[in-house]
Each structure stands twice: as C-alpha cells, then as structure tokens.
C-alpha cells in the first residue's frame, strides 16, 4: 500500500471538516466537523507510523493522545452549547454576533 493513498484520504477528510466548520449553522454540527479534521490527523499519524516504524510506536501513541484530547474537547464544546442554549434557546451560531466592530 502506498503511503500517499492514506495521506490523500486524510487531506480530503480534513478539507470536509473545514467546509463543515465554515458552513454549518448548528454548533453541534460544527463540532462534528472538527471531529472529522482530528480524525484526518489520526489517519496521517497512523500512516506515518506504518511507514516509519519507530521503536516506541510514536505515531500510534500520538494518535491515542489526539483521540483523548478530542474527546475532552467534545465534552467542553457540548457543555458550552448547552450553556448557550439555556440562555438563548438556540444553538445557531448566526445568532451569536453580539460583539463586533
């Protein structure tokens, strides 16, 4: 298997994530898009690990850390969404432009 077949797939997922982040209005859906991007990073890391094969499996360990941090960030993000929803009865980012200029 080519290294690049995985990298290109990762790049595509990352690009989807960027797209979702930019167009989705619902905050929960934005979070889903972020997960796609982090997943793309994981694919990269694992592919590089299989390509390089380090003694301490650095790439895989790195991926585990990324997964953990991503989980924590989902928790944080959903907490923020709930807080905002409680105050505004909406999870739509378009409504959140109180501060500007």
């Amino acid at each position: 298997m080519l290294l690049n077949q995985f990298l290109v797939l990762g790049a595509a997922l990352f690009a989807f994530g960027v797209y979702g982040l930019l167009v989705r209005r619902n905050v929960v859906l934005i979070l889903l898009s972020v997960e796609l991007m982090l997943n793309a990073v994981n694919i990269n890391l694992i592919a590089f690990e299989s390509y390089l094969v380090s003694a301490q499996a650095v790439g895989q360990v790195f991926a585990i850390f990324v997964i953990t941090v991503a989980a924590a960030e989902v928790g944080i993000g959903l907490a923020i969404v709930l807080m905002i929803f409680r105050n505004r009865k909406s999870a739509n980012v378009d409504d959140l432009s109180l501060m500007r200029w």
Partner: protein
Amino acid sequence: MSWEVDYLAIAPELIIIGSLFLVLGLDLTLPRLKKYWTATAAVAGSALALIPLAFLAVEGETISMFDGSYVVDEFALVLKGLFLVTAYIVFLMSVNYIESERYYQGEYYLLLLASVLGSLVLASARDLIVLFIGIELVTGPLYLLAGWRKGDVKSNEASLKYFILGVLSTAILLYGMSVLYGLTGEITFSGLAEATAAMPNSPALTMAVLFLIVGFGFKISAVPFHFWAPDTYEGAPTPITAYLSVNSKAAGFVAMLLVMYLALPGVSDVWAPALWALAALSMTIGNLSALRQTNIVRLLAYSSIAQAGFMLVPFAAAAVAGADLEEAFSATVIYLVIYAVMNLGAFGVVIAGARTTKSGEISDWAGLSNVDSRAAVLVAVFFFSLAGIPPLAGWFAKFVMFRSVMIAGGAATVVLAVVAAVNAVIALYYYAKVVKSVWLDDATREFPGEFDEPPAGSLRLALAISVGLTVVVGFFPALATFVADASRVIAAGG
C-alpha cells in the same frame, strides 16, 4: 529501559497538582459560605510552587528526563517563574471578582490551576507530544472559564468563539505536527533540529512549519489568527481576560520559541519571513484597530495584538544570514516578561477602576483622577509603560526589540524596524488617550460605584506587585536581562 524521574525537578508541577486536589477537596466539603478557602489554597499553591523553583535555580543544573523530552533548565525555570508569578497575580485579582458574584469559586480555581499546570509543562516540553498536551491543558480550561459568567450572553459568545477557533487551530497544528513527524521520524526537538538541518526545503516541510505557526499564531493572537481575541476579551470575566492576554499568550510564545529556535533552526528561511509578515500585520492592524476603540478592554485586546506583533519582530532577524539567534531569542523573552507584568497591571487597574466607573467605556472613565487618584496614577503608569515611555519597564522591552533587528541588519528587518517605530508612535496615541481621559477630561456624570473605600487587599497586592515590577524593571533592566542570559543558554543549543 528504565525511566528515572527527578521529583525535585517536577516539584513545582507536583505542588500545583497538590493544590488542585486540595481545591477539589475543599470545594466538596466546605459549606457554601466558606468557599473562599479554595481561593486561599490556589493562591498559596502558586506561591509555594515558586520555592522549589528557587532551589532548582540555585542548583543551576540542567535536568533532562525521558529521552530529553522533558527538560528543566534555566530557560524553563525562568518561564515557570513567569507563569507562576503571573498566575499568582491573576488569582489575587480573581478573589473578589469571583466572590462578589455568584460564580462557582471552587471549580474556577481548579480550572485555572489546571491551566497553570499546562503552562508549567509547556515550559519544560522538548518534544511535540508534551508540547501539544501542554498547550491543550493551557487552553482547554480557558474555553470554559471564558464563559464563566453563565448568565451573560456576551460571556457565552466569548467562550464559543474562542472554542471554535481554538479547535480549528488545534486541528491545523496537529496536521502540521503529523507531517513533521512523517518527514523526519522524530518528535524530540533535538532530533527534529538534526533532521531538518539536513533536509532540503520541500512544500511538505514548508507547509508543516507554517501550520505550526498558525497553531501558535492563534494562541498569541497574531493577525490574521486574532479574530477571536477582541470578542473573547470583551466577553470573558476580566481576570480571565488578563490571564488570556498574559499567561496564555506567553504560553503560545514559549511554544513558538521552543519549536522555532530549538526544533527548526534549520528552516529559519521559512519561518522567519513568515513571522516577519505576521509581525508587520499584527502591529499595524492591531494598532489601527485600537485607535477606534471606545471600550477599554477591547482597546487592550487590540493593543495586545499589536504587542504580539512587537514580540514577533525579533523572530524576523533569524532570516538574516549569520544573524545572532541568541539575541533575537532573548529579545523576545525579555519583551514577553515585561509585557506580562505591565499588561497584568493594566487589567488589574481596569478591575480596580471599574469598581468606581461601573463601565468599560473610556468616556465613562473621564475625570477618574478627581475621585480616585491612586487608580488614576496606576492607569498612567501602566498605559505609559505599554506605550514604551521611559523609565517604565516597557521602554526597555521596545529597546531590546529594536536592538535585536538593528544588530541583525538586512534590508527586510530594517524595514520591519521602521514599521515597528511608526507603530510605536501610533500606539502612543491611543494609550495616551486613556490617560488623558482619566486625568484631563471632566467627568461627564456622577460615578455610580464606590470610591471611598480602597479595593480589596488581594487586588491591591496584585497591583502593588505589578506596579513595583514595572517601575523597578524600568530603572534596573538588569532584572530582565537576567532572564535574557538564562534564555541565551538555551538558544546556544543547551
């Protein structure tokens, strides 16, 4: 393989962890009215953690653990000291702010301590994984703390904007790290330095380096990755804003310094010009936007974007062939330390003054000197220091920054110095505007808040520390150059 842990070396981290658990325990057991003890625990923890730092500094040995991925050297000690002192001041500023409104005190200090822990880890990080985890631990709690005023929709919004852009930057940063790992097979900084030095420039390497810069650029709020900063600063609780603009920004700079100078000195032909551009953009756009601000916190937000630009200036010197990287490195560190002290002071005085004015609008601060001359003097000290007027500390920071590019020479860096000089003049205008408002303008209304009583003891202590440091460092820059000498060691490859 065995992995030795030097417990003295990580004692500051352990003390912070200890006080974090203490706060957790106290919060669970104490009745509601006694919750202020959690604040005491946090304040004490951040002060106690300085003690082992002193021991380590006296010993002066470089301790390297886990394959050199976690290092306690002079540079790390200096920055840990900076993080702890600034955290201490932020804790002091928080006490009454958090107590006076119905916030969750225990959880507040716990999250802030976690963030401090992250910055301590960051200062010692010498590989990408530790660095990444450190950054996440600094930032994660702050996403939540920015929204700590739960009922305030502005605070909600501050939190969400910070979070969304934060995770975006994390994703980009991680992508860059993964490509860097793939290209070199290394994650330790020393390994990366070796590998990249031998490697010809390729689009992938350039992209990876720039993605790292994007990630750090978010933390330090450099243009064009600054969009979150004004909104989040305005909406977040003021002590958290102070923390964001000082500790969290300092953490971003530490990460950037470590990665650029230690891990990627061989690719300075990529990152130095890129940071040149970010520096010029940040200074200019930050300053010009600040000119129009009417809210004092927003003004400080844009000003801190501009200050980040000034701090980035020395990085550009690395693009000049044969330039003295140590000079550039230490110039940024000195600027960072001085900026931290005076900016904290500025936020402290905003908190103190807001007791009287009950407003963040600069026009509402007019005539403050008539009723609260102490606060007015402090406004003058901190804002003039930020403007770089001698003999307040800020001038030395600017001086060192200019000097580093002048030494390096080279047309591009000199152009940047000129941009910086012009910006320094523009900046003076809006800083002076605040001072003028406080001192020279007539009050437009009765002050709604109290001004007979001095602010709470903890806030006074916080202000006293920052004003003391601002003035003393201005007169005796030796204090700051000590920092420089310590950091010089590391830039020399130590």
